[in-house]
């Protein structure tokens, strides 16, 4: 590909990642075009885009998953390229091909490498050939219950039932027995069909107490592949990441090097172009296995950006422009420590059930080493059609202990009122010895988390202050001024607003 600088890029995504990509595009002097579904007309990514184009109704299948509508929007906007973000069509080879067929640049890998990595089954085979270790499992799609039972027996329970086209923890279940297989097989297939349009599932040996490690890679598509070190993503619920950090606190320097080498080998095997992530699971003896390669920008990419000092979106754009990679491996280093907290509209008291609603009050933490990647704003109604992730808080500091302290501070400063979210969970995690010591597995939350522990952390004085504040606002009399001597304090403008509170509905 010849060097040709991009002037206008369409982002085929929504929410925080669209906002984040827009920021880099603008810094590069590129016009950022958003797309939006009907309910997203008021979403932050639409409001602050340079240009925005409607896709249609709320459900993803009629908007963000419609290849035709997105290509149409790009034509209408006369863009040079499309950035897919993560999720939605980002790992859809057919989409990448359609973008190229429309004469546009796809900011991502070639459809061929997406295809070989996109299906977990074919990726397993490819990695085995390239000499990258893989988890023991079956290597063909399971059609029915008898074949699933047979395969599970050969591997040995517990096994992990996975969607071949899956990713991001969706379409995946641990199966402990034959009885569970009977109830989970059809449901997992149903979810896989609904989420990825492909019902094929397969089995892998379930590794007890695994850790989830992954390596960020960048390729120029001409044979050069660099790694940007690892991320530890073992704080998960329902197989979905909630907290990620870099560097990993749990591996030796030796393991780090062999892990990064294996990742480069994996990416080189598909002559990788752009930014990608090679995921591994590690057992208790630090033995690691290839899990999958995500051929796109990752949700947790900011922790790598903070530690390595590279703007990954800018790197993606430069590769897409044919500029290649401006670093040598020896130029890249990890400096300090970064932790990301995913802020979800979900209920930690109710088994993390999604909890949409309206953001009535929002205040985000600021200060040195604090980064907010977000798709929400005050007054925003969180739509039910999409993933419940609202924002990501990323903290960076000179070492892990300082990053944890910064995380505690920033999370305490964070205010979202109007819907139930998981910030209390993050604050709980940062107090747990396992997390502080850096010795935790992906089963940490499942085994240790008790919602009852979230409730008891207001002191009696604080509870009384809280009740007093609510009573005062409810009474609508304005400020308490009993401490200001005999002279009654004049009713302030705020006090008058407080009077309006008398009309507040109680339901």
């Amino acid at each position: 590909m010849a060097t040709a600088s991009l002037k206008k890029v369409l982002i085929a995504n929504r929410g925080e990642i669209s906002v984040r990509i827009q920021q880099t595009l603008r810094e590069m002097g590129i016009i950022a075009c958003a797309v939006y579904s009907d309910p997203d007309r008021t979403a932050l990514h639409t409001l602050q885009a340079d240009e925005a184009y409607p896709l249609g109704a709320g459900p993803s299948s009629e908007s963000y998953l419609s290849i035709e509508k997105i290509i149409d929007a790009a034509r209408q906007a006369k863009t040079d390229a499309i950035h897919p973000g993560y999720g939605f069509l980002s790992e859809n080879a057919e989409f990448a091909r359609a973008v190229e067929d429309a004469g546009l640049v796809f900011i991502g890998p070639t459809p061929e490498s997406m295809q070989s990595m996109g299906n977990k089954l074919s990726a397993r085979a490819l990695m085995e050939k390239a000499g990258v270790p893989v988890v023991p499992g079956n290597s063909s799609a399971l059609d029915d219950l008898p074949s699933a039972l047979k395969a599970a027996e050969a591997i040995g329970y517990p096994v992990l039932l996975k969607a071949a086209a899956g990713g991001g923890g969706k379409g995946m279940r641990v199966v402990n027995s034959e009885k569970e297989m009977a109830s989970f097989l059809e449901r997992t297939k149903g979810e896989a069909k609904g989420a990825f349009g492909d019902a094929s599932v397969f089995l892998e040996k379930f590794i007890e107490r695994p850790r989830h490690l992954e390596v960020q890679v960048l390729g120029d598509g001409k044979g050069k592949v660099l790694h940007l070190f690892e991320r530890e993503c073992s704080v998960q619920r329902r197989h979905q990441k909630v907290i990620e950090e870099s560097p990993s606190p749990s591996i030796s320097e030796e393991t780090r090097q062999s892990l990064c080498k294996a990742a480069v080998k994996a990416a080189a095997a598909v002559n990788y172009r752009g930014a990608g992530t090679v995921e591994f699971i590690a057992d208790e003896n630090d033995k690691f296995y290839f899990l999958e390669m995500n051929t796109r920008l990752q949700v947790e990419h900011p922790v790598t950006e903070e530690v390595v000092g590279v703007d990954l979106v800018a790197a993606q754009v430069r590769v897409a422009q044919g500029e290649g990679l401006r670093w040598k491996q020896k130029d890249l280093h990890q400096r300090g420590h970064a932790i990301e907290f995913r802020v979800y509209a979900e209920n930690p008291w109710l088994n993390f059930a999604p909890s949409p609603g309206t953001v009535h009050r929002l205040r985000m933490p600021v200060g040195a080493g604090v980064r907010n990647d977000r798709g929400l704003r005050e007054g925003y109604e969180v739509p039910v059609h999409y993933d419940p992730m609202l924002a990501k808080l990323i903290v960076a500091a000179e070492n892990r202990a300082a990053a944890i302290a910064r995380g505690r501070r920033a999370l305490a400063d964070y205010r979202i009122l109007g819907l139930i979210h998981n910030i209390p969970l993050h604050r709980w995690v940062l107090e747990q010895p396992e997390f502080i010591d850096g010795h935790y597995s992906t089963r940490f939350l499942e085994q240790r988390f008790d919602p009852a522990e979230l409730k008891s952390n207001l002191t009696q004085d604080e509870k009384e202050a809280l009740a007093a504040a609510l009573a005062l606002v409810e009474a609508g009399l304005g400020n308490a001024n009993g401490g200001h001597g005999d002279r009654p304090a004049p009713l302030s403008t705020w006090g008058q607003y407080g009077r309006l509170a008398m009309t507040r509905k109680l339901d």
Partner: protein
Amino acid sequence: MELRKTYVTRLFGEDLKAVVVRDGSGKIWVETPTGARITDALVLDGGRTVSIRQNGRMYLIDLTPPGSSWHAALLGGRGGKVQVLDELAAAAAEQESTGSSSAEVLAEMPGLVVEYKCAVGDEVEPGQALVILEAMKMQNELPSPGAGIVEEIMVKAGSTVAAGTVLLRVQPKSLETQ
């Protein structure tokens, strides 16, 4: 003349009382059950923030704005969903909640009722999955609140429901299981 009004704040099932007092000279303060008198409290940002100074300590409380349908209060980022009632309303609400006999299974979030795993008349165990609700791309199993008999299914499978919709009712097996 001194005017007093008692409010009850419900936070995580705990009732917290506070009395707002206005005396003849127009002074206003809040009394707490432990006898503390809060005399310096500022209502800021249109009732969305309250700053309390008590014995030199500062308490910054964030509230959902007046008029919103969802009430929450946070202090130092801790706290949660609250209900504020005056004393009379609180007493009435208390009585109402002890009156019902059958347990309801609610849609905790807006979503699609995919499938019922039970039928009217079925005997069910506590925690048994009764219905699958799909929301935000996840299939969620809603468990039975206790041991009992499925009394009534209120919403057809395939329907889209709002948060708080009662999907079905379970008649408890015995008083002990309530």
